[in-house]
């Protein structure tokens, strides 16, 4: 087995983990991510 490679990396805080599925925050992120993706699509279709 490989050595425990997971030891020396950054892990999310409980707050970050909570926000990842906290619906009001995620609704906001949903909007922002969609806008970002639309930006990419627009830039790529030039």
């Amino acid at each position, binding site marked *: *087995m*490989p050595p*425990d*490679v*997971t*030891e020396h*990396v*950054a*892990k*999310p805080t409980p707050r970050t*983990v909570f*926000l*990842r*599925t906290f*619906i009001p*925050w*995620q*609704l906001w*992120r*949903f909007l922002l*991510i*969609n806008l*970002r*993706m639309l*930006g*990419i*699509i627009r*830039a*790529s*279709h*030039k």
Partner: protein
Amino acid sequence: MSHVVVLGAGVSGHTAAAFLRKWLGREHTVTVVSPKDTYNWIPSNIWVGVGHMRREQVVFPLRPVYERAGIEFVQGAARAVHPEGDAQDATPFVMVEPSARPGTREKVRYDYLVNATGPQLRFDRTPGLGPHGGHSYSVCTEDHAVEASRALDESVARMQRGERQQFVVGVGHGTCTCEGAAFEYIVNLEFTLRARGVRDKADITWLTNEYELGDFGMGGMHFRTGGYVQPSSAFNASLFAERGIKWVTRAHPREVEPSRVHYETVDGVTDSLPFDFAMLLPPFSGVGLEAFDRDGQDITARLFQPNSFMTVDADYTAKAYDAWSPQDWPRTYQSPAYRNVFAAGIAFAPPHAISKPYTTPSGALVAPAPPRTGMPSAMIGKAVAHSIVDMIRGANGPTHMASMAEMGAACVASAGASVLRGTAASMTVFPIIPDFERYPDYGRDLDRTFGEIGLAGHWIKLILHHLFLYKARLRPGWSLIPE
């Protein structure tokens, strides 16, 4: 009247055929040649492979769609291209092996040809790899995914009886591409095991040819987060650490035995991982099309690279890794040998690797091949369709470009499927091919390259699943949905 033939009904070929049909008058014919009469939305195979979706949810019959749209369909596999026709008739044609009559051949004549045949899954490159007589599973096709899901159910049943199970997920060869798909599978697997209440009985390991985690065959990415510019390796490592997934990087898997995968690494480690369940992707090549001139002489080398992907308007000059440039990448996807032949999606030969290639001390290549994901594949298909339409109307050459060095990609990697508890990594990258002249620090525009994990990503992934299937069914307004 012109006859356009599209080989392949995947993301790229289906997009090309649909736009050709939409833009060309009815006096012209559009024909799709493909061995299966179904369309598979491949990205959702991940969810089939963990039992979250059924096969029928990711596949639909193509014939009714093509009938409605006015696209001719030939069910069969293209075997050879005859771009000069034959001694009797100079009209070019493709030699097709009809699916209903294996071993026979049928000529399909064309004026313009789009090769969108995607990859051949080369399980044969690693002994014991793959579901066809090997010992590992795959999710590359809908049927592979169904098989993987059944095997996963068996492992879960064992864990429910108290047994421990070892899972290995990743690549089955040092030159694999599509690490992103395997990444999605491993995090979905972990999520599923948690949802089924058996996570404590599972050891999960990621086995990859990436030099660092998060390379994805694109040399990794950088994101701005928390006041730092972070490499995607940190992003992936953090997710794996959080999920208790271990990893082995820089590896070339050499052999898959019934319950053990042997590998060697760039750093000179030779080792093996035991497993009860392994999902390891195969390396890709082109589908092995041949080409012949008018007199029947073999001209395959004029149309295809040695890896069987099609030669297009790229710079294939052999160069050191550091000497390549974004301008080497193709723009029109036209064959330099025949002006009426194009390749789209995975079928075109990339000019070089994006990730730095390495070799193991024994000489095995560890070089993630460049990915050609859904968005660029569809955009290339559309650009090629546009060029062909213009050429039919009199343009001298291709009029539309879709260079991967000038386009970005948006990708949502599922990390667990549930409408309230699921997550996905939403990522965008611009441009796909790093450009260190325009973006000297990281090769990419950091304002347009980002990554974030959350439930919103899962919603987007789910919406995209339905949206792209709607689009592929050519339902009203399909062409308004972006690629």
